[in-house]
């Protein structure tokens, strides 16, 4: 059943995450009231046209079409869309455009590594973001890779953005198993974020309020993971019996 989310819009950047968000919303029958398109060029996809991802509680896999740009999904869903004047969410012209818009809640799928500054936070619009990492224990850049390394799973968290680094109020979080053979950066991270987002939006559509979760732990802030640890994080979840051993493994001790 399609749910119309009248007071919810979405900010979309030319990224794989935005593609996954829109395709997941379409698949789950979630119709936001407006899409804001951040300027920039979409990167073409050279892989398979469709990739099936099995998600928790999913009777059938979600099928991502990685080569379908977010704006194309927006057009097919016939959603009202407008281009933002600037890629920076904090730019005065962007803030003015958002203030003139209707939705009081905006799903933020903008460019990464951007913190919201006081002027945009002062608009009264609430920005819903899905952070790649299980907060508050895994905050910051590539936090989900640290989670993958230590827990062997992909942690995702839906939060309200504030001025800090992934410090805003928590709505919902979830650990996802990793499907071997699928790219974490290009497929699993965007799709699992999209799944959590859709779960949050469905909750809102069904109940009229957003979920809230609590965790008073101080948490940990991470910075971009070193490639050696990223290699080991990926190896932890994708290694097969046919994989050649690494130096330093049990057989070398």
């Amino acid at each position, binding site marked *: 059943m399609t749910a119309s989310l009248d007071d919810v819009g979405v900010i979309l950047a030319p990224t794989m995450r935005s593609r996954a968000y829109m395709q997941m919303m379409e698949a789950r029958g979630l119709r936001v009231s407006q899409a804001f398109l951040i300027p920039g060029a979409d990167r073409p996809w050279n892989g398979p046209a469709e990739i099936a991802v099995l998600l928790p509680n999913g009777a059938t896999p979600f099928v991502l079409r990685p080569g379908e740009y977010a704006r194309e999904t927006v057009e097919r869903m016939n959603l009202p869309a407008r281009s933002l004047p600037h890629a920076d969410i904090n730019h005065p012209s962007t803030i003015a455009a958002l203030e003139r818009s209707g939705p009081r809640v905006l799903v933020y799928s903008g460019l990464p590594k951007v913190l919201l500054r006081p002027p945009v936070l002062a608009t009264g619009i609430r920005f819903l973001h899905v952070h790649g990492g299980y907060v508050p224990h895994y905050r910051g850049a590539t936090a989900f890779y640290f989670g993958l390394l230590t827990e062997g799973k992909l942690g995702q968290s839906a939060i309200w953005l504030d001025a800090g680094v992934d410090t805003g109020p928590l709505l919902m979080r979830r650990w996802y198993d990793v499907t071997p053979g699928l790219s974490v950066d290009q497929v699993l991270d965007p799709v699992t974020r999209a799944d959590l987002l859709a779960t949050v939006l469905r909750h809102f559509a069904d109940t009229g309020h957003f979920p809230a979760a609590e965790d008073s732990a101080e948490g940990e802030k991470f910075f971009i993971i070193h490639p*050696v640890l990223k290699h080991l994080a990926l190896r932890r979840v994708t290694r097969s019996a046919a994989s050649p051993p690494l130096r330093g493994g049990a057989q070398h001790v």
Partner: protein
Amino acid sequence: MTVYPYMGRDLFAAPETYEFAPCEPVSFFEAWCDAREDAVRLFAERERATVNTSDRAADSAPLGARTLDDILESLLKAAAAGGPLAPADKRTVDSLLQKFEIFRRLFTHYDGAMRKWDGAALAGPDHYILLAEVLGAWCAKTGNPKYLSTMLKAVDALCALPAESLSASAATRLAAVVEQERRLVDHWVRVAGE
């Protein structure tokens, strides 16, 4: 043959971001192992070739400032001591880690709030070796891989320096740091199921 990509240039002057780093093939890990082993060999040659190099004189601190040496030494002691780590020490080590991650440079003096002391000089290789020792010790103590991640970046930058920029004693210490780094990485190799 895969070449470890974070060598051969000054990573302090032109910091590496490590964003979307391609690292999946086993050959990447092998290249890292080889690069570190090559570096240790160079350090050993440096030790043999260098006679009578004196250690850098310890920095002195103006009133109200702390030297980076003093801060790092106290963090090393804190990690070596038994019992839980003090929250103030964690704030200090996390502050230095953040500065290194963002700016890839530290200074010789800081005030009580870990702000750069006015007139402080840029830290040198000896400071970064000590930083790597601290990060290794904190990783070993806490099990938190974020300290190892930053240690790996610091060691990348140090190993990419020309060998002649290190004193003999610094080369010896850096070789020991590389060994400690390898032991810490090996823990995660085993966690990865090897």
